[in-house]
């Protein structure tokens, strides 16, 4: 019974605190982050600067800016960077290999890196990745489609998941679809500090 009592008491305190409007949960602050050893000097957990910028550009393609902010401004690359040092540790090597493959292909084909390509060229490149029509040893055995699917699904998670994981800055996606962020009961908690 001891555990049960303890649990009920904690919940009671939480609910009391919420109804009094005193409990604060930080969107960004809390997020850094369960299961990570801490950021590198760069402030990042796994990705290098160049890798980060590439992921940022891809994320912007997956969730483009329109009347609502897109993947770049909502920090999807932060989400991916943080998860690669946490629950997605198992994808570290795939990311490293995939990012290198994208840059290799872009340098060969366009003589520039992915982030500096024109928007439509980026889009077309990702479409080719998705459908597996990119040529080259880097992409064989279905790797391009598999890596694209990781980039796609992880970007969507970063945009539509909780800001506590590093993405969805300012609750953008929740606001976009008109959802209260339900940390509390019956309160709209956007913009909490």
């Amino acid at each position: 019974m001891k555990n049960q009592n303890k649990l009920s008491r904690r919940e009671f305190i939480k609910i009391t605190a919420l109804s009094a409007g005193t409990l604060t949960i930080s969107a960004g602050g809390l997020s850094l982050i369960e299961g990570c050893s801490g950021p590198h000097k760069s402030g990042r957990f796994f990705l290098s600067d160049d890798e980060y910028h590439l992921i940022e550009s891809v994320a912007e393609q997956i969730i483009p800016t329109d009347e609502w902010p897109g993947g770049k401004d909502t920090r999807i690359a932060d989400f991916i960077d943080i998860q690669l040092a946490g629950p997605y540790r198992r994808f570290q090597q795939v990311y490293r290999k995939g990012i290198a493959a994208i840059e290799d292909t872009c340098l060969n084909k366009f003589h520039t890196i992915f982030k500096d390509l024109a928007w439509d060229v980026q889009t077309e490149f990702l479409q080719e990745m998705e459908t597996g029509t990119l040529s080259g040893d880097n992409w064989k055995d279905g790797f391009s489609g598999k890596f694209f699917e990781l980039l796609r699904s992880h970007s969507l998670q970063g945009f539509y998941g909780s800001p506590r994981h590093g993405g969805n800055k300012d609750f953008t996606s929740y606001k976009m679809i008109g959802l209260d962020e339900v940390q509390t009961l019956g309160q709209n908690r956007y913009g909490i500090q």
Partner: protein
Amino acid sequence: MSNKHVNAVVVGAGAGGGVVAKELSEAGLSVILFERGDWVSFDAHDTDELNSQRTTVLGNACGPDDDRYRRVLVNDDGSSHIVLPSENDYNNVAACVGSGTVSYGAMAWRFMSEDFHMKTTYGNVKGSTLDDWPITYEDLEHCYEKAEWEIGVSGDASPNPFAAPRKKPYPMPPFAYNKEAMMLETSMKRMGLHPFPIPMLRNSVPYNQRPACVRRRSCCGFACPLNAKSGTHNTVIPSALSTGNCELRVHCVVSEITVNESGRPTGILYFNQEGNQQEQTADIIVISASATETPRLLLNSKSKHFPTGIGNRYDWVGRNFQGHAYTGAFGLFEEDIFDDIGPGATIAISDFSHHNTGIIGGGILANEFTRLPYLFTGIRPPGSPTWGKAHKEFQRKYFRRNVQVVGPIQEMPVFDSRVQVDPSIKDFWGIPVVRLSGHRHPKDVEGCEFLSGKAEMILKEAGASTTWQSVGGKGLSGGQHQAGTCRMGNDERISVTDRYGRIHETPNVFVADASLHVTNGGFNPALTIMAFGYWIGEYISKEWKKGNHFA
């Protein structure tokens, strides 16, 4: 260190084990309830969609964790690969006190009479081990009633002419329909169907010293912040502990059932939180660890007397692994249907549960639980963009304008869909892990196509501007509704336990979870698992009081 001998150990504090622990401890037996996880609270996980039991991409909020657990899945070509608990192929339920009942959607279905005699109703099905249960609905009815009243169900069965007969109504009134359910009710009735409010293991009014539900969107897949959702963790397990006869040991991973020289099971071996192996002896051993973990434990309990594992003399342990294919349809509407009154699922029909032409069994159809933001990214008409501008626009335009009608189809058990233990892969504690293989029966796809067709008709009738079907029924089944791997029966050559869940070849080892299910109905199975907890607990208690200590 040796632990004090007790009357009974129960392995797994979920829907079945929690009830058995309560029944036995109230009858005066000394009981130890083992759980590999811990108590979970809303505080620890709240509404984090990505780390929940609904969408597990960043982990299972209610366990198990990716660091210590793994399974092996056999691929179509016979090769195999390791899967983690956060991956769908793991076929996870949960690992915590209350197990799936902490985070479930809490639909509280009774199976129908036909579900207990599928073979008599439908005959032999080629390629399936479809059979009758050794008990009937009438045998189990009082146990359903006990589960409904002790654990707490809200509902009203009266508008459902197909419901199995009941002696007592539900203890709480039903939940009111949300907006999409009101819309569906009208169209269902126009079609001559018989809609009714979904019975829920959730408090519609204050009950059993717990408050009423406040209808949050994040319910299915999450712990309840108010304790308004009824699981074994906030009902029967606290009751068991309050008898003074039951001890709960959390963070304890049971690895093996011990057997003495004469072949009598004597207790269990387990690893405690510090990782040290311990022995716990008991007169009675109840295994309620889920349809994947229960057969794993039996198969890992090899000895001179049980060379292929306990209960496995005829190679039936782990066989007939089944669950529910979810099948249905989506509809898009040109006006807002989503009113954010959670958890969403409120209305169902049972018109297609049985006696459909050309189909064996069937399933309920219900409106779906709230599609949370990330989950909704996968809901698109076939051929739609899966990323980019149009995908984002769709998310914005249709999040409040989509309805899903869906249900669990009754699956045909297949002998070669199975749980084994892997010959080489072990978990953190060095215990051989679950190895999953097999396929659903071809008949399941027919059932799914049938039910999805009906779901789409309902959505069209409701005025959806676009509809499409999502047809389940292929690949390996299992999932959160996993069942069937230690089926009960009267013939020990084609079943694992008797009608009371006792393993045929032992005097004192019982199974009390969905592993027992000969067939899995066309309904979410939680209430049936709870009812079986009462059924088995009642049997053991009665025998014990008569002086039968299962020696």
